[in-house]
């Protein structure tokens, strides 16, 4: 009985210790500096691309901005927000995946619908505009 209760106490302690350890955050000086240096590089590249007018094609510049931005978001998530698949039993990651899906639907859906709306609108001539109520 005593051993049973001690082992339970141990498990409780271990669990509490874990959650406490998580609460304190598991970033180290090295991980923060790594994240910072990567962020500076990933911020400097798109600004340089736009301000220096490096690439000739607009599509290439916009694609580069978006890809580098996405990489930088992942860098921030990993090095500053300490995202991983294990914290809170994987529920933070589940919430993140759910949010990313909803965000993607909201963004892509809005652009898709509004683009179709624009292209299906009748072209107005100046005469029609004059006759508007």
């Amino acid at each position: 009985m005593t051993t049973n209760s001690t082992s339970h106490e141990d498990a409780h302690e271990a669990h509490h210790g874990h959650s406490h350890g998580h609460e304190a955050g598991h970033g180290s000086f090295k991980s923060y500096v790594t994240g910072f240096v990567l962020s500076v590089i990933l911020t400097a590249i798109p600004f340089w691309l736009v301000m220096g007018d490096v690439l000739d094609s607009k599509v290439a510049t916009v694609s580069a901005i978006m890809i580098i931005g996405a990489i930088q978001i992942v860098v921030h998530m990993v090095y500053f927000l300490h995202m991983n698949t294990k914290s809170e039993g994987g529920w933070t990651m589940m919430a993140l995946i759910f949010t990313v899906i909803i965000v993607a639907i909201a963004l892509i859906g809005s652009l898709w619908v509004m683009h179709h709306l624009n292209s299906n609108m009748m072209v107005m001539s100046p005469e029609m505009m004059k006759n508007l109520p």
Partner: protein
Amino acid sequence: MSNIQSQSAEKPQFYLEEDHHPEGSTNLGFWLYLMSDCLIFATLFATYAVLGRNYAAGPAPADLFDLKLVAINTAMLLFSSITYGFAMLQMERGAKQETLFWLGITGLFGLAFLGIELYEFYHMIHEGATPQRSAFLSAFFTLVGTHGLHVTFGIIWLVTLMVQVSKHGLIHENRRRLMCLSMFWHFLDVVWIGVFSVVYLMGVVG
């Protein structure tokens, strides 16, 4: 004695699990708040993406945005992110004064960011680029203004916690609060990556 123990052995796990559950789930709960905040920004980004080209014969992003200023602003927020990281490292060491010092530096970088952003807004409104001017400007001020408001409340929260830490020290509750603000602050930096990429850089590219 054995009777009490056998009685307690039947049900106690229920109470124990209930007991320490709320403490551990603060992180998850705050994370869920951040995710819902993320959805607010997603709708504002979607609005900007749809309306961002409707200038109503008014000024376009290339006429309005000063990328050097935006670069400085981005640097301010990035610096504030790493200094908050240093504050968290000092908090883990249990060094109260150093934690307060780095929190103060973080707050100053945050204030610099806000100052530059307000200067930019003032400049734009002075030139006639008000939120009422075009759909693009309405969407711009709503999106960037909401981010700025978040930073403002982040700074208020930061000052509150600095007072709390200096009064009560790095107690368990204050560590938990600092952890939540850390997530909030880094989250705002993540949103800013979207803002400078989509609004400023892609706006100037055209």
